[in-house]
């Protein structure tokens, strides 16, 4: 970092009004590109099968996807057991479903193989007992911490994806407090 990298005073004054738009557009573009890239990769796969070698996806992404699958399953059980309290839980579930979709797209891009399956029940730990609200909160907190730690091992869009997921899960813990 150097002082030479500093934006001008005029640029700084304009930043609050312009930066959010740029961040939002950039962020949405990242998500769309991730999904679109996955589809594109899937279409190109037959043409490049003879030379494209799938890579191992980043461990932080696959670990996070597995955590999301477990959280989804726990929430499904909690919602089924107490439908009257389901409004918040269904919202959390929707967020985790979005997380898993985003992670799955990122993993597909990382391995350059559009057929990489999403983590399934068979690849997740055995079914745990029905969790209380306090236990769900603890699970969200643990997931947030794990995602934050995983984000630090990654760079670029993958890192930002996990950082954002971590922040979301921290807000879930807040809702369940």
């Amino acid at each position, binding site marked *: *970092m150097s002082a030479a990298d500093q934006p001008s005073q005029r640029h*700084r004054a304009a930043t609050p009004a312009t930066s959010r738009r740029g*961040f939002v557009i950039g962020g949405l573009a990242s998500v769309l590109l991730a999904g679109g890239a996955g589809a594109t990769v899937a279409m190109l796969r037959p043409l490049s099968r003879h030379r494209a070698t799938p890579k191992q996806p980043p461990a932080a992404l696959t670990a996070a996807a597995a955590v999301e699958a477990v959280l989804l399953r726990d929430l499904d059980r909690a919602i089924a057991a107490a439908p009257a309290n389901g409004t918040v839980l269904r919202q959390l579930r929707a967020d985790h479903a979005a997380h898993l979709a985003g992670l799955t797209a990122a993993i597909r891009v990382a391995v350059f193989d559009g057929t990489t399956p999403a983590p399934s029940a068979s690849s997740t730990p055995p079914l745990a007992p029905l969790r209380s609200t306090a236990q769900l909160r603890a699970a969200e907190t643990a997931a947030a911490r794990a995602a934050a730690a995983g984000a630090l091992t990654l760079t670029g869009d993958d890192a930002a994806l996990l950082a954002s997921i971590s*922040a*979301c899960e921290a807000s879930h813990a807040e809702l369940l407090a």
Partner: protein
Amino acid sequence: MTSFNDAWQAALAAEQQAVFGYSLLGPRLGTADQATARSSLAAHEALRDVVDAAMTAAGLVPGEPAADYPSLYPVSSASAARALAVRLEEDCAAAWRFAFRLATVTTRRREAQTALTGSAVRATQWRRIAGVTPATTAFPGI
């Protein structure tokens, strides 16, 4: 291409805007919401000061806050104040997520992650207070 320094300055600017914004919206809130507004303001003031000091220590010149933030007006009611609080937090979350995306130094990355999470949690608190459904977003900062 945006450098981390630019993103860091933008995050500081978002924090400065939040400090201004909470001072603006606070008087419009009812008693029940005042404590949340005060703690939110304190969090942004503390973060602003930490970032300002870190930039100075790094040999950078922290950007000055704007004299005014016309885009935050008007705040004519308690509901408008709560909506503005959500917006301030979402702006900060977006700025910190972007800073995290570009940061390479672990200290700066942890700082950005913590700030992103703090704004995401506060945004959720304000959405819940405002009765906004859903109260969370799947990808804070996007």
